[in-house]
């Protein structure tokens, strides 16, 4: 945005939103997923201990994956920033409204991205992800209901227009298409062991015991 404000560092996103982004909008899903997500069940891992080799071989976090993620993120940023910019160029949109669109687009995008990569959906995960999106909407509405801030009522004004929602939908889908496409092709044609094991768990283990709901035996 700095390129379009004559390099004067105006922020389109309100200061409050910038702060709340890390605190409310996106921290909770990350924490919940980090704690609770699980790719394989205990039974599968005990059956094929070689699956732990993936961690030892750095299959989920290595240099190549890092750069791929950087490029994916770059694309997503470009989509989130430029779609509203061009859609609203030379229109009568004001700074606060466009800032609200950017704020909401970013939060929806990162949460849907996370949702795409999750392995297991507990009710807590649902609550964290969809709850964060709803919390963001609520926070933006509250911030825009304070008359002493210059952006008063901007969200309600722009959310009334269909162009706003069309931008939001277009950004979310368009930004995530490259990630999704790469994911499906890699998952289908070059699956890693963990992916195969997950599929086996779901589709082939009808006779494998489902009594995983037992206590851990003490290691004696």
């Amino acid at each position, binding site marked *: 945005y700095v390129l379009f404000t004559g390099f004067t560092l105006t922020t389109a996103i309100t200061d409050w939103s910038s702060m709340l982004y890390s605190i409310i909008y996106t921290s909770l899903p990350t924490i919940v997923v980090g704690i609770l997500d699980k790719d394989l069940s205990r039974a599968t891992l005990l059956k*094929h201990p070689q699956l732990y080799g993936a961690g030892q071989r750095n299959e989920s976090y290595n240099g190549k994956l890092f750069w791929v993620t950087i490029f994916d993120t770059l694309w997503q940023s470009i989509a989130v920033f430029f779609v509203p910019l061009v859609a609203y160029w030379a229109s009568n949109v004001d700074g606060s409204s466009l800032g609200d669109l950017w704020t909401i687009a970013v939060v929806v995008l990162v949460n849907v991205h996370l949702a795409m990569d999750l392995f297991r959906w507990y009710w807590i995960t649902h609550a964290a992800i969809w709850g964060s999106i709803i919390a963001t909407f609520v926070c933006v509405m509250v911030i825009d209901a304070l*008359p002493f801030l210059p952006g008063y009522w901007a969200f309600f004004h722009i959310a009334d227009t*269909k162009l706003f929602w069309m931008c939001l939908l277009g950004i979310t889908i368009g930004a995530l298409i490259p990630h999704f496409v790469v994911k499906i092709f890699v998952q289908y044609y070059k699956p890693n062991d963990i992916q195969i094991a997950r599929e086996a768990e779901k589709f082939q283990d009808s006779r494998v015991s489902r009594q995983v709901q037992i*206590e851990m035996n003490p290691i004696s």
Partner: protein
Amino acid sequence: MSSGDAALQSSSSKASKKPTYSRFTQQELPACKPILTPELIMAAFIFLGITFIPIGLSHLSASDHVVELIDRYDEDCIPVDNSNSEAAYNKRIGYIQDVKTDKTCTRTLIVPKKMKHPIFVYYQLDDFYQNHRRYVKSRNDEQYRNPAADHKTAHCEPESMNNDNQPIVPCGLIAWSLFNDTYSFSVNGNSLPINKKGIAWESDKTHKFGSKVYPKNFQSRSLIGGAKLNESIPLNQQEDLLVWMRTAALPNFRKLYGRIETDLEANEMIKVVINNNYNTYTFKGKKKLVISTTTWIGGKNDFLGKVYITVGGICLFIAVAFISVYLIRPRPLGDPAYLSWNLDPASN
């Protein structure tokens, strides 16, 4: 014996330290474990393709239906040539800053297609950075709302006090630079009335600007930045001011001037008499008069329609590609033969 006792005691104390089992701590909560099967992927892409393409097409058709007339008048409405020389530049500035010259200018516009009311009249400014950081900060919302808060002119420097140290209401650079070109329209000799009510946001009129706050000492310093305000009309009814105070997000922007409440037929000639008062010549900005109809997506803008069609097209293409590759080289899901240690037994 004693060691046996000790072992017994330690094993029982070990047992008591074991944490209680709970499904949460053992990550055994009931969960949904979706996996992307080929059927699901194909269905998803086809669905996206067949919904996005029609949405994109309807966007484009709506944008096509918008009839828009744009007329750039800052170059022609000034009796100085448009060369980029220093002399011409200074002459333009001198002309526009001279309060004594009559700056009216008449332009003729031809309506290309029938326009249904309400027809919106905007003024468009290009290269005007209403989003400049110091400009955006230069306002005091408390002063605009509260009649007792006249003296609150924080952040408004230099437009906060006049030469007699009296506070300026409304203070700040945003209000000071209020656009002051005026337009009057006529068709075939009959004047076309412009509705200038209801152009500002309702929320601004009721909550942001006070109904008892009147302009005071406005434009009373040495440099005049724009329009003067009628001191007997309270701020919340000065709709041009309210529209201007909603600072634009981007350097090329339009602001609503008024509405034409009658239809305009194709090929009608509209005569516009413009008072070319506003100085955009110092920073080489552009001024344009825009007359436009609107549709459900707003003004004329093809971009989002093209984005939707592109995304929809890509989705269909991916769906086709995936289906064809799936038919050529299917992989059974979960087949243990594909596990890496099974594929390559020699490396075990």
